[in-house]
Protein backbone atom coordinates (compact mmCIF):
# COMPACT_ATOMS: atom_id res chain seq x y z
CA UNK A 1 0.00 0.00 0.00
CA UNK A 2 1.38 3.35 -0.98
CA UNK A 3 0.50 6.28 1.16
CA UNK A 4 -0.47 9.34 -0.80
CA UNK A 5 -0.47 12.72 0.87
CA UNK A 6 -3.95 14.17 0.72
CA UNK A 7 -4.48 16.98 -1.73
CA UNK A 8 -7.82 18.48 -0.93
CA UNK A 9 -9.67 19.71 -3.97
CA UNK A 10 -13.18 20.49 -5.00
CA UNK A 11 -15.35 17.43 -5.46
CA UNK A 12 -18.76 18.93 -6.13
CA UNK A 13 -20.67 22.21 -6.45
CA UNK A 14 -19.81 24.45 -3.54
CA UNK A 15 -21.69 27.68 -2.86
CA UNK A 16 -19.60 30.62 -1.83
CA UNK A 17 -19.67 34.40 -1.65
CA UNK A 18 -17.03 36.59 -3.21
CA UNK A 19 -16.55 39.91 -1.46
CA UNK A 20 -15.47 42.86 -3.55
CA UNK A 21 -14.49 46.12 -1.93
CA UNK A 22 -14.01 49.46 -3.62
CA UNK A 23 -12.08 52.34 -2.07
CA UNK A 24 -13.72 55.57 -3.06
CA UNK A 25 -11.34 58.46 -2.55
CA UNK A 26 -12.48 61.71 -0.99
CA UNK A 27 -13.87 64.14 -3.57
CA UNK A 28 -13.58 61.53 -6.37
CA UNK A 29 -15.12 62.97 -9.50
CA UNK A 30 -18.10 61.55 -11.34
CA UNK A 31 -16.94 58.97 -13.85
CA UNK A 32 -14.04 57.82 -11.71
CA UNK A 33 -13.29 54.16 -12.35
CA UNK A 34 -12.40 52.21 -9.23
CA UNK A 35 -10.97 48.74 -9.45
CA UNK A 36 -12.45 46.30 -6.97
CA UNK A 37 -10.41 44.23 -4.58
CA UNK A 38 -11.83 40.71 -4.77
CA UNK A 39 -11.72 38.20 -1.96
CA UNK A 40 -12.60 35.00 -3.80
CA UNK A 41 -10.64 32.36 -1.95
CA UNK A 42 -11.74 33.11 1.57
CA UNK A 43 -10.54 35.35 4.33
CA UNK A 44 -7.17 33.63 4.67
CA UNK A 45 -6.10 34.56 1.15
CA UNK A 46 -5.24 38.15 0.28
CA UNK A 47 -7.79 39.98 -1.83
CA UNK A 48 -6.74 40.47 -5.44
CA UNK A 49 -7.68 42.94 -8.12
CA UNK A 50 -8.07 40.11 -10.64
CA UNK A 51 -8.97 36.50 -10.00
CA UNK A 52 -8.15 33.54 -12.22
CA UNK A 53 -10.53 30.62 -12.09
CA UNK A 54 -8.59 27.39 -11.49
CA UNK A 55 -8.25 25.29 -14.65
CA UNK A 56 -10.12 22.43 -13.01
CA UNK A 57 -13.11 24.48 -11.97
CA UNK A 58 -16.01 26.38 -13.44
CA UNK A 59 -17.58 29.18 -11.45
CA UNK A 60 -21.16 30.32 -11.70
CA UNK A 61 -22.18 33.76 -10.49
CA UNK A 62 -25.68 33.47 -9.14
CA UNK A 63 -26.35 36.88 -7.67
CA UNK A 64 -24.83 40.28 -7.03
CA UNK A 65 -25.92 42.23 -3.97
CA UNK A 66 -24.98 44.97 -1.55
CA UNK A 67 -25.93 45.11 2.11
CA UNK A 68 -26.36 48.87 2.20
CA UNK A 69 -27.19 51.57 -0.26
CA UNK A 70 -24.35 53.80 -1.36
CA UNK A 71 -24.05 57.43 -2.26
CA UNK A 72 -22.94 58.36 -4.80
CA UNK A 73 -24.23 55.39 -6.76
CA UNK A 74 -21.87 53.57 -9.09
CA UNK A 75 -22.17 51.26 -12.05
CA UNK A 76 -20.70 47.78 -11.79
CA UNK A 77 -18.51 46.59 -14.62
CA UNK A 78 -17.48 42.97 -14.85
CA UNK A 79 -14.49 42.17 -17.01
CA UNK A 80 -13.67 38.63 -18.08
CA UNK A 81 -10.33 38.14 -19.81
CA UNK A 82 -10.27 41.88 -20.38
CA UNK A 83 -13.67 42.05 -22.00
CA UNK A 84 -16.44 44.11 -20.49
CA UNK A 85 -19.45 41.87 -19.91
CA UNK A 86 -23.04 42.88 -20.48
CA UNK A 87 -23.87 42.81 -16.78
CA UNK A 88 -23.81 46.41 -15.64
CA UNK A 89 -26.19 47.05 -12.76
CA UNK A 90 -25.65 49.92 -10.40
CA UNK A 91 -24.72 49.20 -6.82
CA UNK A 92 -28.02 50.57 -5.52
CA UNK A 93 -30.03 48.44 -7.94
CA UNK A 94 -28.59 45.30 -6.37
CA UNK A 95 -29.26 46.42 -2.79
CA UNK A 96 -30.52 43.31 -1.09
CA UNK A 97 -33.62 44.91 0.44
CA UNK A 98 -34.85 46.43 -2.79
CA UNK A 99 -38.47 45.54 -3.45
CA UNK A 100 -37.56 44.95 -7.06
CA UNK A 101 -33.93 44.05 -6.90
CA UNK A 102 -31.86 43.70 -10.06
CA UNK A 103 -31.45 40.00 -10.77
CA UNK A 104 -29.49 37.81 -13.10
CA UNK A 105 -31.81 35.86 -15.41
CA UNK A 106 -29.36 33.02 -15.63
CA UNK A 107 -26.11 32.18 -13.92
CA UNK A 108 -23.06 33.92 -15.27
CA UNK A 109 -20.45 31.28 -16.07
CA UNK A 110 -16.80 31.93 -15.48
CA UNK A 111 -15.03 29.21 -17.46
CA UNK A 112 -11.80 27.49 -16.37
CA UNK A 113 -8.72 29.74 -16.42
CA UNK A 114 -10.81 32.87 -17.02
CA UNK A 115 -9.35 35.94 -15.39
CA UNK A 116 -11.96 38.35 -14.15
CA UNK A 117 -12.11 41.62 -12.35
CA UNK A 118 -14.72 44.12 -11.28
CA UNK A 119 -14.69 47.89 -11.51
CA UNK A 120 -17.20 50.52 -10.61
CA UNK A 121 -17.78 53.84 -12.29
CA UNK A 122 -18.96 56.60 -10.00
CA UNK A 123 -22.19 58.13 -11.28
CA UNK A 124 -21.67 61.34 -9.27
CA UNK A 125 -18.87 63.01 -7.39
CA UNK A 126 -18.01 61.69 -3.95
CA UNK A 127 -18.22 63.91 -0.89
CA UNK A 128 -15.28 65.07 1.14
CA UNK A 129 -14.88 61.81 3.03
CA UNK A 130 -13.36 58.64 1.59
CA UNK A 131 -15.65 55.60 1.61
CA UNK A 132 -15.48 51.90 1.00
CA UNK A 133 -18.19 50.16 -1.00
CA UNK A 134 -18.71 46.43 -0.70
CA UNK A 135 -20.29 44.23 -3.33
CA UNK A 136 -21.17 40.62 -2.61
CA UNK A 137 -21.29 37.97 -5.30
CA UNK A 138 -23.07 34.70 -4.64
CA UNK A 139 -21.34 32.05 -6.67
CA UNK A 140 -21.03 28.33 -7.02
CA UNK A 141 -17.63 26.80 -7.50
CA UNK A 142 -17.76 23.39 -9.17
CA UNK A 143 -15.28 20.95 -10.69
CA UNK A 144 -15.17 21.47 -14.45
CA UNK A 145 -16.28 18.45 -16.46
CA UNK A 146 -15.70 18.93 -20.19
CA UNK A 147 -18.64 17.80 -22.28
CA UNK A 148 -17.63 15.19 -24.83
CA UNK A 149 -19.02 15.13 -28.38
Amino acid at each position, binding site marked *: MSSTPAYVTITGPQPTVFIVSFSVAASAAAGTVIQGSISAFGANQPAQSAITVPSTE*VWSIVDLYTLSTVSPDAQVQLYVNGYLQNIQPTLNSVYINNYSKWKL*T*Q*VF*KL*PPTATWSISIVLLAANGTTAQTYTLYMSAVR*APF*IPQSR
Partner: protein
Amino acid sequence: MVEPYFTTETGAKGFLIEAASGGLATLTGIYLWSRIMGPAQQLLSRFLGRYSGPVTAVILALIMLYIARSLDGWFGKFVDVASLAMIGASIAKVFGIDPPGEVAMTPSKTPAFVSPWSTLEPIPLG
Protein backbone atom coordinates in the same frame (compact mmCIF):
# COMPACT_ATOMS: atom_id res chain seq x y z
CA MET B 1 -34.05 -37.05 -54.46
CA VAL B 2 -31.73 -34.66 -52.67
CA GLU B 3 -28.26 -34.36 -54.11
CA PRO B 4 -25.55 -35.27 -51.58
CA TYR B 5 -23.39 -32.31 -50.70
CA PHE B 6 -20.58 -33.29 -48.35
CA THR B 7 -19.81 -36.74 -49.59
CA THR B 8 -20.23 -39.05 -52.51
CA GLU B 9 -21.03 -41.94 -50.18
CA THR B 10 -24.49 -43.35 -50.54
CA GLY B 11 -26.83 -45.21 -48.30
CA ALA B 12 -26.91 -44.99 -44.52
CA LYS B 13 -23.25 -44.04 -44.26
CA GLY B 14 -23.71 -41.20 -46.72
CA PHE B 15 -26.82 -40.01 -44.91
CA LEU B 16 -24.98 -39.99 -41.58
CA ILE B 17 -22.03 -38.04 -42.98
CA GLU B 18 -24.40 -35.54 -44.60
CA ALA B 19 -26.46 -35.05 -41.44
CA ALA B 20 -23.45 -34.83 -39.12
CA SER B 21 -21.51 -32.47 -41.36
CA GLY B 22 -24.50 -30.30 -42.12
CA GLY B 23 -25.57 -30.14 -38.49
CA LEU B 24 -22.05 -29.42 -37.27
CA ALA B 25 -21.54 -26.73 -39.89
CA THR B 26 -24.85 -25.10 -39.00
CA LEU B 27 -24.08 -25.18 -35.29
CA THR B 28 -20.59 -23.81 -35.92
CA GLY B 29 -22.06 -20.98 -37.97
CA ILE B 30 -24.57 -20.10 -35.28
CA TYR B 31 -21.93 -20.37 -32.58
CA LEU B 32 -19.60 -18.00 -34.46
CA TRP B 33 -22.52 -15.73 -35.15
CA SER B 34 -23.51 -15.56 -31.48
CA ARG B 35 -19.92 -14.67 -30.57
CA ILE B 36 -19.89 -11.86 -33.13
CA MET B 37 -23.20 -10.25 -32.20
CA GLY B 38 -22.35 -8.83 -28.78
CA PRO B 39 -18.97 -7.27 -29.58
CA ALA B 40 -20.19 -5.96 -32.93
CA GLN B 41 -23.21 -4.44 -31.28
CA GLN B 42 -20.92 -2.72 -28.81
CA LEU B 43 -18.34 -1.57 -31.31
CA LEU B 44 -20.55 -0.48 -34.16
CA SER B 45 -23.87 0.45 -32.61
CA ARG B 46 -22.80 4.07 -32.88
CA PHE B 47 -22.77 3.83 -36.67
CA LEU B 48 -25.23 1.07 -37.49
CA GLY B 49 -27.62 1.21 -34.57
CA ARG B 50 -29.45 -1.97 -33.62
CA TYR B 51 -28.54 -3.65 -36.89
CA SER B 52 -24.79 -3.49 -36.21
CA GLY B 53 -24.67 -7.12 -35.04
CA PRO B 54 -26.56 -8.67 -37.96
CA VAL B 55 -24.87 -6.44 -40.51
CA THR B 56 -21.41 -7.33 -39.24
CA ALA B 57 -22.31 -11.01 -39.11
CA VAL B 58 -23.57 -10.93 -42.69
CA ILE B 59 -20.44 -9.17 -43.92
CA LEU B 60 -18.23 -11.72 -42.15
CA ALA B 61 -20.39 -14.55 -43.47
CA LEU B 62 -20.06 -13.25 -47.04
CA ILE B 63 -16.27 -13.10 -46.64
CA MET B 64 -16.33 -16.66 -45.28
CA LEU B 65 -18.55 -17.71 -48.17
CA TYR B 66 -16.16 -16.17 -50.66
CA ILE B 67 -13.21 -18.01 -49.12
CA ALA B 68 -15.20 -21.23 -48.84
CA ARG B 69 -16.09 -21.19 -52.53
CA SER B 70 -12.40 -21.11 -53.38
CA LEU B 71 -11.65 -24.08 -51.12
CA ASP B 72 -12.05 -27.62 -52.33
CA GLY B 73 -13.21 -30.62 -50.41
CA TRP B 74 -15.08 -31.16 -47.22
CA PHE B 75 -13.69 -28.15 -45.31
CA GLY B 76 -14.73 -25.71 -48.00
CA LYS B 77 -18.23 -27.09 -47.97
CA PHE B 78 -18.28 -26.98 -44.18
CA VAL B 79 -17.34 -23.31 -44.10
CA ASP B 80 -19.84 -22.70 -46.88
CA VAL B 81 -22.72 -24.11 -44.86
CA ALA B 82 -21.54 -22.39 -41.68
CA SER B 83 -21.52 -19.01 -43.35
CA LEU B 84 -24.95 -19.63 -44.82
CA ALA B 85 -26.14 -20.43 -41.29
CA MET B 86 -24.71 -17.13 -40.13
CA ILE B 87 -26.57 -15.24 -42.81
CA GLY B 88 -29.75 -17.08 -41.96
CA ALA B 89 -29.34 -16.32 -38.28
CA SER B 90 -28.70 -12.66 -39.04
CA ILE B 91 -31.90 -12.45 -41.05
CA ALA B 92 -33.74 -14.13 -38.19
CA LYS B 93 -32.20 -11.64 -35.79
CA VAL B 94 -33.47 -8.72 -37.82
CA PHE B 95 -36.94 -10.22 -37.54
CA GLY B 96 -36.53 -10.45 -33.80
CA ILE B 97 -35.70 -14.16 -33.41
CA ASP B 98 -32.86 -14.56 -30.93
CA PRO B 99 -30.99 -17.82 -31.39
CA PRO B 100 -29.68 -19.69 -28.36
CA GLY B 101 -26.30 -18.86 -26.92
CA GLU B 102 -26.10 -15.29 -28.07
CA VAL B 103 -23.51 -13.40 -26.04
CA ALA B 104 -25.42 -10.92 -23.95
CA MET B 105 -24.78 -7.40 -25.11
CA THR B 106 -23.31 -5.33 -22.33
CA PRO B 107 -25.31 -2.16 -21.93
CA SER B 108 -23.88 0.60 -24.05
CA LYS B 109 -22.27 3.39 -22.09
CA THR B 110 -24.94 5.80 -20.99
CA PRO B 111 -23.49 9.21 -20.25
CA ALA B 112 -23.22 9.76 -16.53
CA PHE B 113 -25.20 12.66 -15.14
CA VAL B 114 -23.11 15.81 -15.14
CA SER B 115 -24.25 18.61 -12.89
CA PRO B 116 -24.88 21.80 -14.88
CA TRP B 117 -22.75 23.60 -12.31
CA SER B 118 -19.79 21.65 -13.67
CA THR B 119 -20.34 22.64 -17.29
CA LEU B 120 -20.67 25.85 -19.25
CA GLU B 121 -24.34 25.14 -19.87
CA PRO B 122 -26.51 28.10 -18.90
CA ILE B 123 -28.59 27.65 -15.77
CA PRO B 124 -31.74 29.76 -15.62
CA LEU B 125 -32.45 31.52 -12.36
CA GLY B 126 -36.02 31.68 -11.12
